[in-house]
């Protein structure tokens, strides 16, 4: 058990008790900033989900029901921007802030004040973006991909949205620099890179992706801005520019971006499966190399989003084969997750259910991605609901499932309280039913030829659209369900042990639950079995520390 100096909640040890404003607005504490990110992300998920309900209500039956087509397009555009930049990305940054210092034995992030700024930019950025809904002409409606010339036909919303995207980019870049500086410089003695938890590894690699491609997005939207307001012709064919060049630049950002949203999810699942299988992650080094391989490949496949734009045959073939290559390291990961569970002493607590759901359903999304990679097939699938089904499987049953899994998994460490396993499992099974009702029929609609981003459709598509909309209404209840489960836990949940899960390994489980405001203020002295990886001679899951043991350790530490 690592020695640990902080045993009580000392956030008032700065000479005076911190006020609410000092603690939350001027915070430099990685746990508080992580909490802010997670709360912000939850709010944005609700906002984005409300937009998806507008979309699915309109599509429940053929014909125009509730909204004008122009507003429908604003909903699809802003839904995507809010969910990607306001929901998924801040959720993973929140998890990184909370867990990376705890996992590597660091006292905080390397740059605590920049950390505060990284977060507090975001509420202003999204206020700016969402205010466009109230401008004359409404919000951006050309799709989250912002393809010109369509995206430049908006009014003032173009400037608002581009400024908001610049701010989100600056926030992400600063967050990524912070993660890299922390992991490369702040690891406790004994936490070698290849002994780090996979979640920390996944974030180290993700941070490099962010630094590489957020400036590309910033460059793309800067050029959109000057085309719109300053008379340049980067993407204006009439002035010698090229709108297809925008698509290349956008997707050079966009494809690594989708891996930015899934690599930390891989990290989360690689933490949870070993815990509830009570054996170490199978193929630890292969998992690290697979993440790095996927990250590298993510830079050289961008034009598979543009197969139908009119590329040379050589380009089509290259991007098809390069894209299919990603299935190799991804397959390594899926097989290693299954092998981790193989012959494990499995138990199915709530985080494990979400992690297993991830492995199965994310893989469905991966397979539909492989179908889309086939050029002649993509000529049929492109811009249909099949694409919508594909990316919602990898983003909802992939990224979002892992965020929920991580929340249930680390909640006892964050709050010192357990949640109701019954209601956690109820939340899971409810979601499984409705998320598949929502997205699986969209495969059928796409294969039958229903286009994306339309508010009305041929009557032949009516039945599956109604099924999908029923799924959406059921899914909309789930964030409120989760909020209720966690609120009750916070108020009256059973006390959590330091090692909240019997099979949990890693430094974060050596500190008390809830984690004190300041941890590892002196570097921990790492003892046998503290680390989850690279310490196999000491990993003895057969004689795993029991709850009684951890309580004894905790009491000993506090006395």
């Amino acid at each position, binding site marked *: 058990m690592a020695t640990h100096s902080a045993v009580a909640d000392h956030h008032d040890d700065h000479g005076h008790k911190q006020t609410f404003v000092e603690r939350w607005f001027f915070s430099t504490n990685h746990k508080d900033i992580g909490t802010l990110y997670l709360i912000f992300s939850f709010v944005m998920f609700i906002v984005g989900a409300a937009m998806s309900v507008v979309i699915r209500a309109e599509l429940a039956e053929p014909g125009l029901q509730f909204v004008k087509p122009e507003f429908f397009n604003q909903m699809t555009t802003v839904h995507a921007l809010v969910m990607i930049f306001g929901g998924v990305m801040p959720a993973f940054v929140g998890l990184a802030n909370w867990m990376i210092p705890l996992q590597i034995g660091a006292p905080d992030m390397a740059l605590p004040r920049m950390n505060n700024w990284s977060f507090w930019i975001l509420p202003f950025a999204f206020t700016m973006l969402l205010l466009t809904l109230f401008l004359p002409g409404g919000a951006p409606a050309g799709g989250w991909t912002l393809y010109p010339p369509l995206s430049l036909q908006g009014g003032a919303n173009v400037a608002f949205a581009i400024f908001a995207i610049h701010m989100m980019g600056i926030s992400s870049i600063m967050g990524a620099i912070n993660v890299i500086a922390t992991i490369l410089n702040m690891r406790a003695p004994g936490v070698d890179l290849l002994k780090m938890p996979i979640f920390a590894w996944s974030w180290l690699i993700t941070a490099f992706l962010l630094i590489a491609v957020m400036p590309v997005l910033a*460059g793309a939207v800067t050029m959109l801005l000057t085309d719109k307001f300053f008379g340049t012709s980067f993407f204006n064919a009439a002035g010698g520019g090229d709108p297809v060049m925008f698509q290349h630049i956008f997707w050079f950002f966009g494809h690594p971006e989708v891996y930015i949203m899934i690599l930390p999810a891989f990290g989360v699942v690689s933490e949870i499966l070993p815990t509830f299988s009570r054996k170490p992650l199978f193929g630890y080094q292969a998992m690290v190399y697979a993440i790095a391989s996927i990250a590298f490949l993510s830079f050289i496949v961008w034009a598979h989003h543009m197969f139908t734009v009119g590329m040379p045959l050589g380009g089509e073939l290259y991007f098809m084969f390069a894209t299919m290559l990603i299935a190799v390291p991804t397959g390594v990961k899926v097989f290693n997750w299954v092998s981790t569970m193989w012959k494990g002493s499995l138990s199915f607590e709530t985080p494990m259910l979400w992690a297993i759901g991830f492995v199965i359903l994310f893989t469905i999304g991966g397979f539909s991605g492989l179908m889309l990679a086939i050029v002649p097939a993509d000529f049929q699938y492109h811009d249909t609901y099949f694409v919508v089904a594909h990316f919602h499987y990898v983003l909802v049953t992939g990224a979002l499932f892992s965020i929920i899994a991580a929340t249930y998994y680390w909640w006892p460490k964050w709050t010192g309280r357990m949640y109701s396993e019954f209601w956690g499992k109820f939340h899971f099974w409810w979601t499984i039913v409705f998320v598949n009702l929502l997205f699986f029929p969209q495969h059928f609609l796409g294969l039958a030829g229903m286009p994306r981003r339309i508010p009305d459709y041929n009557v032949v598509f009516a039945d599956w659209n109604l099924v999908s909309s029923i799924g959406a209404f059921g899914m909309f209840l789930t964030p409120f369900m989760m909020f209720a489960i966690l609120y009750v836990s916070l108020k009256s949940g059973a006390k959590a042990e330091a090692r909240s899960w019997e099979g949990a390994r890693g430094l974060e489980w050596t500190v008390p639950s809830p984690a004190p405001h300041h941890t590892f203020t002196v570097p921990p002295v790492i003892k046998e079995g503290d680390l989850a990886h690279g310490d196999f001679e000491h990993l003895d899951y057969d004689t795993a520390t029991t709850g009684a043991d951890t309580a004894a350790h905790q009491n000993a530490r506090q006395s």
Partner: protein
Amino acid sequence: RSENARRGVRRTVLVLAAIAVAIYVAFILSGVTAS
């Protein structure tokens, strides 16, 4: 918390920030030369 680690953090930040700015400028310049 050693001075050595502080120096490491400073160097990491400067290098990464320089890379980010360089990529931003490079992509706009690529737009300038292509259009």
